């Protein structure tokens, strides 16, 4: 077989359109409190287990369960004490993160 018979794509064009629409900034990570205000990273690194804080935050989409969350977004660098930009997503702080990816800064991963 030398040639693919048919190539139909669904997700690739959608992701491409999203990327071209302006989502080009690399994703950033900030530790935020329930109001979406950026706090020092150790708050997330040492956060208690889920369930110790039951209140929902006021930052759009803030989940219930932790006093602090890692917040992933596209935009400028996080500033401690200021609200992070909207439209991002949260990850629970129960696991350590950032253990991969550091070598990629300024380099290309592919060959």
């Amino acid at each position, binding site marked *: *077989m*030398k*040639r*693919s*018979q048919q*190539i139909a*794509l*669904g*997700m*690739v*064009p959608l*992701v*491409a*359109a999203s*990327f*071209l629409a302006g989502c*080009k*900034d*690399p*994703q950033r*990570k900030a530790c935020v409190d329930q109001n979406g205000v950026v706090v020092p990273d150790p708050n997330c690194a040492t956060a208690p287990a889920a369930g110790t804080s039951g209140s929902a935050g006021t930052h759009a989409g803030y989940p219930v369960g932790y006093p602090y969350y890692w917040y*992933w977004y596209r935009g400028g660098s996080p500033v401690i004490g200021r609200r992070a930009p909207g439209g991002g*997503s949260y*990850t*629970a702080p*129960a*696991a*350590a*993160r*950032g*253990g*991969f*990816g*550091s*070598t*990629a*800064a*300024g*380099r*290309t*991963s*592919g*060959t």
Partner: protein
Amino acid sequence: MRRVAIDPRPTWADDVRALGLVYCYTGDRPYWDESAYYEFTAAEIDRLEAATRELHRLCLEAGQHIIDKNRFGELGISFATSEAIRRAWDAEPPALYGRFDLAYDGHDIKLLEYNADTPTALLEASVIQWYWLQERFPDADQFNSLHDQLIAKWRELRNSLPDPLYFAHADQGTGEDLMTVTYLSETAMQAGFETRILAMDQIGWNAQAGFVDFEDRPIRSIFKLYPWEWMVHEAFGGHVLDARQGITWIEPIWKMLWSNKGLLAILWDLFPGHRNLLPARLHDPAGMTTHVRKPLFSREGANVSVVTPSGTTVTPGDYGAEGFVYQAIAPIPCLEGNYPVLGSWVVDGEPAGLGVRESHDLVTTNTSRFVPHLFLSGND
């Protein structure tokens, strides 16, 4: 093989972006370059396919040799990593794809290097040039069954890998790595997998659950477009080397043996004079006054020196601390000022297609251009 100049489609940039090639420019110059195409005969394609199959066979023997003779140190691979490689080599976890970069002057086919761990230029080879062919030369053929073979491999793995199947990248803003994993994810979805895409730095580590995703769900199988030689030295590197972790990494860690440029010297040691290999030596040019010096872990042509009697040219970069391999200069033809390198793809160990990248000099870097190809059936 000949290079044929042609007028690009007026809307080419919009056309290829709509198919996912958001990185169709490098700076202000086209990366996807359809102002020309490469034409092969069917006989040439048969020879390239046979050479690819043969090189894959040689690499299997070389991998076993490195393990049996414990030559990891020569490749800059630590003892802890070598133990993980041995385990993976014996366990044979899934390996998906790779790309041999070949020099071809119309007569000889020579291996330049093997991008076995994190090959890119996949979307353009599999999808973009296929659609280009349908529109411009529907009666011609193309060495390109990548899409079908990727889906076939995922189907084979469907019952052995649990959902969801993750795809991780570390895109630096160009969109290339993101679109590469998005495309691979789509081929897995078409084979029936539930897939999720995440960034490498979103991968979490939890002592109870092991590796987890952005919602703390355990990761059991993951494709990562991220080099093993980086992973093993980063903060979570110790966890990936731990034999107790119940996670399947694609590509497997033993691909470090093939993506290492030192493989070229080991292949030459084992098969001196082989028709598809160039003379190569580890750490010393061994009398080769004319040669190319490549860092063992270099990526996209960084820190490569071309040494000839008339002088030395060097590409920039920050690789080389781990050592170098010295390889004879390949017979890459210069066609109207362009040096083509043929990327011959392998999926599940089988030849799967061809992508041509050309540069203005002998070293293919991240500023090279991808040029589509076709071949004419019955044309010898």
